[in-house]
């Protein structure tokens, strides 16, 4: 441990001057703004494409449309026989259910892997990880046959039920890593007080894991919202289609396509996920504002 004098030296030497701090902040903001433009440009392009005349979309040099019209939005909304309102509600249903399922089921499994000791734990963990590594294209057909035998084709069951059965190994793994970062002393203290594993899970681990649960919710929502392959294979009636699937029917390389409508509906489809994200990201910050975790 140092004496007083050297400590003061060290402290002053490492406090940047106000000017230096100012410059750093400005530099950071410049970087962030520059990067934000890179992030925003595609959205601006899509917005522009959704309000300009169709034959300008691919030929124009600037982002600014020559004419403004919301016609593409109207065409897109009702363009397919089923309105996009139906697609949006289908997507919502599937995504919300998936979030519920994933958060519930994966946290249960993750708690077991992270906090409980039982025979075969490492073996099951390795198997669980393996399910992450197989590309979906090859389990697709056997899974389709399986769901067909269950009579689940043309319903949302193949899309949603696996979530309630913790099929998303990604989230199990994610939560395991997070749970393992929480101090064991908490568990031990609770145990001494006679808490069952369920109580520890419900009263201690979960509340402290808001960041990872919020993360899981956000990712689940966005990924199921964006998924088109599952709905493509399992949903037959257009009434059941999701937004992403509906979008894909606007363009076809063998015939007429309505690009304006595609971009208009794409812009609209971004709104729910963006809103969901904004709402849940607050939980990410506020989760562990408390520093109540003593090490």
């Amino acid at each position, binding site marked *: 441990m140092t004496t007083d004098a050297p400590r003061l030296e060290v402290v002053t030497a*490492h406090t940047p001057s106000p000017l230096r701090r100012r410059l750093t902040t400005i530099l950071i903001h410049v970087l962030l703004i520059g990067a*934000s433009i890179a992030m925003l440009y595609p959205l601006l392009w899509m917005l522009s494409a959704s309000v300009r005349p169709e034959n300008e979309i691919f030929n124009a040099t600037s982002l600014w449309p020559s004419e403004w019209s919301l016609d593409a939005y109207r065409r897109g909304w009702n363009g397919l026989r089923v309105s996009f309102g139906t697609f949006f509600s289908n997507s919502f249903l599937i995504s919300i259910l998936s979030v519920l399922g994933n958060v519930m089921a994966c946290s249960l499994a993750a708690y077991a892997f992270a906090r409980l000791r039982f025979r075969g734990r490492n073996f099951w963990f390795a*198997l669980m990880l393996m399910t992450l590594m197989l590309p979906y*294209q090859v389990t697709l057909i056997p*899974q389709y046959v399986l769901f067909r035998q269950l009579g689940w084709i043309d319903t949302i069951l193949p899309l949603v039920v696996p979530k309630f059965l913790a099929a998303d190994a990604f989230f199990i*793994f994610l939560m395991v890593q997070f749970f*393992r970062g929480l101090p064991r002393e908490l568990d031990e203290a609770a145990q001494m007080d006679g808490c069952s594993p369920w109580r520890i899970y419900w009263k201690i681990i979960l509340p402290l894991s808001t960041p990872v649960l919020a993360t899981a919710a956000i990712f689940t929502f966005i990924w199921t919202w964006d998924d088109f392959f599952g709905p493509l294979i399992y949903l037959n009636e257009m009434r059941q289609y999701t937004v992403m699937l509906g979008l894909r029917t606007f363009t076809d390389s063998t015939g007429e396509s309505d690009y304006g409508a*595609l971009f208009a509906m794409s812009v609209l489809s971004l709104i729910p996920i963006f809103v969901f994200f904004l709402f849940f*990201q607050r939980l990410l910050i506020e989760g562990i504002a408390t520093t109540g975790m003593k090490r």
Partner: protein
Amino acid sequence: MTARSFAPDAPARERAHSPSMLQRFWQNDAPGYLFLLPWFIGFFGLTIGPIISSLYLSFTDFDLLTSPDWVGADNYVRMFTNDPKFAASMRVTLFFVVFSVPLKLAFALGVAMLLNRGIKGLPLYRALFYLPSLLGASVAIAILWRQIFAADGLVNQLLEPFGIIGPSWISNPRYSLWTLIILSIWQFGSPMIIFLAGLRQIPTDMYEAASLDGASRWRQFIKITLPLLTPVVFFNAIIQTIDAFKSFTPAFIISGGTGNPINSTLFYTLYLYQEAFGFFRMGYASALAWVLLALVAAFTAFSFLTSKYWVHYDD
């Protein structure tokens, strides 16, 4: 700390008589298994069947329209001796993994740290940086990427004042893969969010204490942040690598499912998809998938084994 029964009087009971295997199971292992019950149902009900099927299919000739014919190891033999596209797709995929994953993680961590400082407008910036990931696999991305990386695209327009006449990055076999690498890095939102969540879990009083002791920002990063973040770094590294090996959609939409020009964007799973659905060779595609699985599993096992040297958990 050993796992014992959670009932407080267990030790007494156990001293009284030797528990049977069933009782031991119930006391020690049951909690774990009960928590895993949903996963077990899912695994044995929905997942294991298709996985075993796909393994079986890899030893067959399956054209999707008629039933599979057993061909033994033919698919695997052909893969390793007589398939230039297999080698090409492996090369492309490995290149992609080696370059995109570290860069993506570096960006994700860097930006997460920047945002963790608590600057003004944090939620807005965080959302903005996540925006590209929201766009995911839309057709719009393919069109946009062309607008940016074609011969008359944005990038070349920016290079022009410097006297550099760039090629058509996206349609030139030498550079096309890099445009996909950049696309992957551009969508760093997911690992960034996870890093942020991990950073948020580090108690701030540790930083305060370190500051008081006179540690510089850099030292704090090296001695506090990084070590405590290692579980998250580990997670992100594994997941991003697995994802990169399995990467399909960007190559699919940007090359139109072709892997061109000249197979320079023929990702492994894209090749797999072509074989399965384009050429009615699902048996061969299954074999391809299992080879990929073996490769990724080996990598993951290696990572887990070496992780104990650098990942710090609190248990």
